[in-house]
């Protein structure tokens, strides 16, 4: 292993960059995004979807375009409350209502048949009010179990609480970014928090750690072969993994982008959530997890020196 004593020259794009000099900027960016999310959460909360809130959704394809306002009024005249009617394009409309019985659904279909000659039922979902709270509980359990398991895995892997905790912080950073931005998107674009959002959230947790581990792995490897200070090693690790991180995120983003634009209404927001998670996960590994690790290390040194 003679050759490994030589400093590993990094990829062409980012030669010997001192990434960690701009720690404050990274924290500022994260702060702004998370701050925006918290503001949005406090003012508007999350827009809960059918799974959590309960209710009925009906999706029909009509023979021609209809006016959502006229349809809404006609259904309400029949004594059935309508929360919203959304056009999905292609003469397809999504009706959202409080939970309704089958008899009410028949009434709605009668009313609608007067507005448009032909109608085809594409989807009919009703979720009772008792389902939501149960889902919330199961989701919280899932998040707790997944994060504890990941924490244990990272801590064992790096034999260090410092590494494990910084990785978990970066992971929570990504969850906050995702939840906050979804509250924002919910208010301005109608993004709903449903079953699939929860799945995206949990996937983000693992993505985040996935990327962080790759960077940490590099730090650990160079710690074994050279005695440089952590800042230098960390800078080099970021440089060495940067193009890998970006390239890998690109491939994932390509797939998600295609799904977002072409995958249809049902999984559009799911793809958006995964997209946000991927971008945030890629960002947080070099710019949150590593700076936190370095700051922790420096603080620990200071305390040691004072003693």
């Amino acid at each position: 292993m003679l050759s490994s004593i030589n400093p590993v020259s990094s990829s062409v794009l980012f030669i010997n960059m001192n990434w960690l000099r701009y720690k404050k900027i990274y924290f500022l960016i994260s702060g702004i995004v998370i701050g925006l999310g918290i503001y949005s959460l406090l003012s508007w909360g999350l827009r809960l979807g059918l799974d959590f809130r309960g209710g009925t959704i009906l999706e029909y394809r009509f023979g021609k375009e209809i006016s959502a306002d006229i349809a809404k009024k006609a259904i309400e005249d029949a004594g059935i409350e309508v929360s919203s009617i959304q056009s999905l394009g292609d003469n397809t409309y999504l009706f959202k209502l409080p939970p309704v019985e089958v008899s009410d659904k028949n009434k709605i279909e009668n009313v609608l048949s007067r507005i448009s000659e032909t109608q085809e039922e594409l989807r009919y979902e009703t979720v009772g009010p008792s389902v939501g709270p149960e889902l919330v509980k199961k989701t919280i359990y899932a998040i707790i179990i997944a994060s504890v398991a990941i924490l244990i895995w990272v801590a064992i892997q790096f034999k260090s609480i410092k590494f494990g905790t910084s990785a978990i912080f970066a992971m929570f950073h990504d969850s906050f970014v995702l939840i906050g931005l979804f509250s924002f998107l919910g208010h301005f674009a109608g993004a709903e928090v449903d079953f699939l959002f929860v799945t995206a959230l949990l996937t983000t947790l693992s993505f985040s750690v996935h990327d962080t581990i790759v960077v940490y792995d590099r730090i650990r490897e160079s710690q074994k072969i050279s005695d440089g200070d952590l800042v230098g090693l960390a800078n080099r690790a970021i440089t060495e993994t940067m193009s890998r991180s970006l390239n890998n995120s690109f491939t994932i983003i390509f797939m998600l982008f295609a799904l977002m634009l072409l995958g249809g209404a049902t999984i559009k927001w799911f793809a958006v959530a995964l997209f946000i998670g991927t971008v945030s996960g890629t960002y947080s590994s070099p710019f949150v997890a590593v700076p936190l690790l370095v700051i922790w290390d420096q603080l620990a040194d200071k305390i040691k020196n004072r003693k």
Partner: protein
Amino acid sequence: MTTPLKKVLIIVLLTLLCLYISLPKSIPVNLNFGPINFNHRFERSDLNLTLGKFSLKRNFDLVLGLDLAGGSHLVFEAQTQDLDQVDREKAVNSVRAVIERRVNLFGVSEPNVAVSSFEGKDRIIVELPGIDDTQEAIGLIGKTAQLVFAEIGSEEVPGVTKTSLTGAGLKSADVTFDQTTGKPVVLLEFNQEGGELFAQLTEKNLGKPLPIMLDDEIISAPLVQQTITGGSAQISGEFTLQEAQNLAIQLNAGALPVPISLIEQRTVGATLGADSVAKSVYAGLIGLSMVLLFMVLAYGKLGLIADFALIIFGILTLSIYKLIPVVLTLPGIAGFLLSVGMAVDANILIFERFKEEKLQRPFSDALEVSFGRAWDSIRDANIATLVTAFVLANPLDFSFLHTSGPVRGFAITLSLGIFVSLFTGIVVSRNLLRAFIKPKAHGK
């Protein structure tokens, strides 16, 4: 250089086998070149192996979930909160049995009835592929079961006449063993009113069969051997323990120990399902071509090898879906597409490493070292994703986690994708690289 080539050959054979499984069942081929016409439908025969007692039958069709094939997903809640644990399980199983029987009346292919309990609430989940007339389905499943004791008509009035003794008069049905014969018997216990009616019935029909009907279907017609008073009776006959248990379940089901109510229903029409499939296949193909193109642009020849590995990844994964089989849902497809994006990660890690290593050591050494060094990162990082996928998929059916639906479909395809990508990223592309990338071709 023979060993890598041999391995490549094995990989090619494996891929061809998986390709055979992955392709649609029949492919029409129509070629017209002037006078030469070639019209043929290539059909894949189903797997049908018999080795002694062991037989294996597979048709290699992709199994689509309700959201893609169309169908109804219904969740009923059983009102069991006033019962103790033992009665509760009995009640839920009875409800499940009666629903299963009714669902079978639909003639649906592969209906699925499952029980799920969470924090004191008992749910019965019913999945009916291909049914989009929910009203009928809900009506039939949700209606109160009618258990009726009937009489055999006399010569003047033939047939069977229902009496006023119904499931409401029955307290419970259990399986015990006859003390003298040792054979399994079904013990009926009536409530006050039911017991009185039963006494009258048996007196009137002494020596005649007394049909027991569940939803207009005779499930048993025991012979009345004596007038039975006292509110309990036993049905004996030449049945096995299993048959006696089934009868007891049916009787209990007919008695419907607890009311059920519909709390969730999701119905997707077949057209919307087909639409979703078409859209995600389209999105997948576009995304895939972007990834393939990107890899070539970013890594040149190496990227081309990674692209081959990625296509092999797709073929292997698809055939695994068919072999297990994995029920493919819309989120499941998303999980698969996501894993395509992640599958190249292993290659990217290795190639980036290779760029560094080849500056310091001979070409082929650099390749091997890169694989070795990158493996640690690849393994550690993927285990973290697998941990989450494990929690989401909940393979051990912990009742405090999600047990069904979209989350599970996503997690299963994602974790399968990770396993296969480890194989293609490490084994497949490594051997392809060893065999096809030569130092001088690479100019280093």
